[in-house]
C-alpha cells in the first residue's frame, strides 16, 4: 500500500475542461500535493491507492485535513450490514480514485444524483478512507450477539478502554459501531466523502458523532516536517514512520497472526484509539515561557529537548537526554515534563503510530475557544502500548492540568481489501 498515482484525471477528460487537462498532461509528472484545486483548473491527480494489504490512511504520510465519524448500525440484519460495507467500500474506492460515487456524471434526471457533487472536478488530494469496527458492532450493551460475530470479537475490544483519572467523557461523542477516518489535503473533498457515506448509510447506519480536524499534529513519514500543536509546540517527533523497517512495524503497529486466535481475521490489521482532548488554551497561554518549556520538556521556538544546552543549534529530532542536569542541579528535563512521561525510552520501548489533528469547534458559551487535539493512534495492542502511557500521563504529566479528555473510541481496523476483496474485514463474516 502507500503507492501513489500521479496521472491526468479522467474527470478532467470527460468534463468541460477536457482540452485543458490534456494540455496539462505533459507536465503532470511531479506530484501535486496542495490545497483546493478549483473545478476547471488543470487536473493533476494525487490519488492514494485504495487497494492494498493494509488499509490506506495509516502509514500513508499524514495529510493536512481530517474528517472522522462513527456510525451506529441501525439494521438488525447481517446481510444488510454486509451490503452496506460493500457499498461503502465501493464508494470509498471511487472517491479515493477521484471519481464520482456511482461512476459517471450523466444520470437519470428523474432520480436524485448518486453523488452529492461538491467534489466534482476536484483533485482527490490524497484522500484516504479507513474503516474500523467498535466493540458495540459485536455485542450490544446487554452482551447480545448482534450479527453472529461475537465469537470473533477481538479480546482487546471485549476488554474495552479502562477508565482513567479525570476522564470527562461524553457518551454521545464516544465509541460507535463503525468508525471512518477520512484524511486528505482538501477539506471539501474530505467532507464530501463523509456526506456520501452517511447518505449511503440511511436505513442501515446513522451518524453517531463526527469531528473535523484541520492541522495534522504528527508526521508519519521522514519527508514531513514536525507540525505544531495548539500549545505551540512541536510534539510527536518519535512517531512510528512509514519508512520504519517491516520488523519494527510488525512489532508495534500490525496485529500478527496468533495474537488473538479468535480474531484471526484481524491479522495484518491494527487497533485505532481515539481521544478528543480539549486544550484549555486561554489558561495555558498565561504561563511563562519558562514554565511552558518545563511542562513540555522542549524549547518552544526550536523544538529541541531541554537537555540541549543551546537549543538554537538543535532541533526537535535531537534525542532527549533524561539524565542531563541543569545549572540548578535539577533534571534539565523536569520529572513531570510531557516528553519524559511519554517517551518510549521511559515506557519499556513501546511505540505507537500517532496520527492526530488539531480541531476547533467554534467556542463555548463562556467565550473560550472549543479547541484541542483529536488524538488518533494506531497500535498492535493498546493494552501494552497505549493504556499504560495514558495512565502515567493523567497521573504525572504537567500538561494534564491544561487538558480535558472529552471523548474516547477504540476500534479494530481490519487489513486492506488486497487485490480481490470487496470490503475491509470481509474475513470477519466469512
Amino acid at each position: 500500500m502507500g503507492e501513489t498515482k500521479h496521472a491526468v484525471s479522467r474527470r478532467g477528460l470527460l468534463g468541460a475542461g477536457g482540452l485543458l487537462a490534456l494540455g496539462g498532461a505533459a507536465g503532470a509528472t511531479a506530484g501535486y500535493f496542495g490545497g483546493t484545486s478549483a473545478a476547471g483548473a488543470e487536473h493533476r491527480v494525487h490519488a492514494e491507492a485504495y487497494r492494498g494489504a493494509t488499509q490506506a490512511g495509516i502509514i500513508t504520510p499524514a495529510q493536512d485535513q481530517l474528517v472522522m465519524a462513527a456510525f451506529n448500525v441501525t439494521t438488525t440484519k447481517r446481510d444488510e450490514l454486509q451490503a452496506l460495507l460493500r457499498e461503502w467500500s465501493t464508494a470509498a474506492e471511487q472517491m479515493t480514485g477521484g471519481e464520482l460515487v456511482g461512476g459517471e456524471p450523466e444520470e437519470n434526471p428523474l432520480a436524485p444524483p448518486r453523488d452529492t457533487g461538491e467534489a466534482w472536478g476536484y483533485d482527490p488530494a490524497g484522500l484516504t478512507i479507513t474503516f474500523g469496527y467498535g466493540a458495540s458492532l459485536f455485542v450490544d450493551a446487554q452482551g447480545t450477539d448482534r450479527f453472529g460475530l461475537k465469537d470473533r470479537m477481538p479480546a482487546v475490544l471485549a476488554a474495552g478502554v479502562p477508565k482513567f483519572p479525570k476522564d470527562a467523557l461524553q457518551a454521545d461523542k464516544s465509541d460507535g459501531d463503525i468508525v471512518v477516518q477520512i484524511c486528505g489535503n482538501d477539506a471539501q473533498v474530505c467532507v464530501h466523502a463523509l456526506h456520501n457515506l452517511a447518505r449511503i448509510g440511511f436505513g442501515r447506519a446513522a451518524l453517531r458523532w463526527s469531528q473535523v480536524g484541520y492541522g495534522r499534529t504528527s508526521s508519519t513519514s521522514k519527508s514531513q516536517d514536525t507540525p505544531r500543536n495548539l500549545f505551540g509546540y512541536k510534539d510527536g517527533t518519535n512517531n512510528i514512520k512509514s519508512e520504519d523497517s517491516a520488523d519494527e512495524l510488525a512489532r508495534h503497529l500490525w496485529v500478527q497472526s496468533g495474537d488473538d486466535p479468535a480474531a484471526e481475521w484481524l491479522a495484518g490489521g491494527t487497533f485505532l484509539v481515539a481521544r478528543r482532548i480539549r486544550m484549555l488554551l486561554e489558561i495555558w497561554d498565561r504561563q511563562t515561557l519558562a514554565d511552558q518549556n518545563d511542562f513540555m520538556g522542549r524549547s518552544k521556538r526550536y523544538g529541541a529537548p531541554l537537555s540541549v544546552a543551546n537549543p538554537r543549534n538543535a532541533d526537535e529530532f535531537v534525542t532527549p537526554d533524561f539524565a542531563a542536569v541543569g545549572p540548578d542541579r535539577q533534571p534539565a528535563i523536569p520529572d513531570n515534563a510531557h516528553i519524559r512521561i511519554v517517551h518510549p525510552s521511559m515506557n519499556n520501548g513501546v511505540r505507537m503510530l500517532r496520527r492526530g489533528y488539531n480541531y476547533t469547534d467554534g467556542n463555548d458559551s463562556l467565550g473560550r475557544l472549543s479547541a484541542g487535539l483529536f488524538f488518533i493512534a494506531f497500535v498492535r495492542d493498546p493494552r501494552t502500548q497505549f493504556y499504560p502511557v495514558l495512565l502515567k500521563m493523567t497521573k504525572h504529566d504537567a500538561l494534564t492540568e491544561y487538558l480535558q479528555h472529552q471523548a474516547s473510541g477504540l476500534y479494530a481496523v481490519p487489513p486492506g481489501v488486497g487485490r480481490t476483496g470487496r470490503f475491509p474485514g470481509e474475513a470477519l463474516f466469512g
Partner: protein
Amino acid sequence: MTPITRLSTLAVGAVALTLAVAGCTDNATPAGAGTLNVTITDTTCQVSAAQAPSGTVNFEVKNTGTVANEFEILAADKLRIVVEKENIGPGTTVQVTTAMAEGTYYTACKPNMVGDLVGVTEFKVTPGAQVQVSDDVKQLQDKAVDSYTDYIKDQAGALLTNTQKFAQAYAAGDTETAKRLYPLARMYFERIEPTAEAFGISEPGDLDAALDRRIQDVALEANAQVTDPAVLAQWHGWHRMEADLFSAAGSAYKITDPAARQAEADQLVTNTQTLYDLVSGKRTGADGKPFAVTLADINHGAGALMEEVAKGKIVGEEETFSHTDLYDFQANLEGAQVAYGNVQDIVKKKDPSLDTEITQRFATIAALLQKQQTGTAADGSPTYPDYSTIAAVQKEAGEVPNEAAYTPVQREFSDGVNAVSESLSKVAAVVLN
C-alpha cells in the same frame, strides 16, 4: 412547501431511455429464456450477443476474473449509465434484468469500479414484439392516477365535515371539545398536504396560506414580532385558532371577542369548502383548469409528506401551541403510504427489491410512532401525548430548540424518516417511464 409542479416539469422532459434494474442479487438464479451471458475477466467484458429485441432483457453476469468488477450498460452517448451492477466479486454470478427500449447502447465493465471502462461494445436493441410489461404498466399507471384522485376527494370531503364540527365547537366557546377535535380534523388535511398546498383561487398556494399559515411566517414577512397586534390581525386559519385555544390565559394570542372567534370559524369553513369544491370538480383553480393529479404528483406526494415530517413534525415546529405534532406525523405518514401504495404495483414489477425496502422502512417508522400512541378514543381515533413532553420543541412560536437538544425519541424518528425518504427518492425514476 414545495409546489407539486416541480416534478411534473421534470416528467415532461424525461428521457424514455431510463431503465430499471430488477432482481439484482448476488445469488445465481437460473437463467430463463432470452438470457444473455456476460463473461467478465480482469481485461475483457464479453456479452454472448450483440443485440436483443426490445422488452425485458436478462443478463447473467459472471465474473471469472481475480478482482471485483462492475457491469454497465451505457446510453448511445457512452456517458449516461442506464443500468449498472457494482462490486461483483470474483467467481460470483449476478442477474441484471432491465426493460430496454429500441436503440443503440454500449456494454462495458470496470474492474474495481474505478478507472477506464474495459471492453466497451456496441449493443443494439431491435424492435421487438410489443412488450407485455409495458401494457401492464400503462394500465397500472392509469389506475394509480384514478385511485389517488379518489383518495384526495375522500379526504377533502372528510376534512370539510370534521372542520365544520371543530369550527362549531370553537365558535360556541366549547374549548374542551374544540381542543380535542383540533388535531383529529387536521389529520385529513395533513394526509393530502402537498396536493392541497398547490391549490389556489387567485394564485397557486393561496388556499394553503389561508388555511395553514404559521405566525412565524406572517411575522417574518411583516418584519415584526410574532406577538405584534398588527401581525396577529393578519393571521388566520387553523394555527390562529390553535394559538387561541392552547396558549395560556392572558397570552397575546387569546381571542376574547366572541364575534372575532365566530369570524375565524366561518372563514376556516369557507376556505375548506373552496378546497373541497376544487378537488371535487365543482370549480376551477387559479389556472382556470379543473383539478387533476398526475403520476408525478403521486410520486412527489409520498416524498413531500415525509419531508413535512422531517422539517416540521419531528422538530416540533408545526404545532407550536398545541404540541399535537404526532397526529400530523401519523397523517403525513399515512398519506405517504397511500401515495406510494398507488404506484406500488409498478415498482413491484420493475424493481421488487426497492419495493421490499420501502415496505420494510415504512413499517419501521409506523412501529416507532405506534410506540408513542397512548390509546384509542371511542371513535377509533388515536391519542398521542403532548409532544413537548417527549421532544425538544418550539414553544408558542418562540425559539427553536438548540441543535444539541433533540431527544432519543426524535433521533429514532429522524433515522426512520431518513431511511424511508432515501428509498422513496428512487421511486420516480422507476415509475415515470
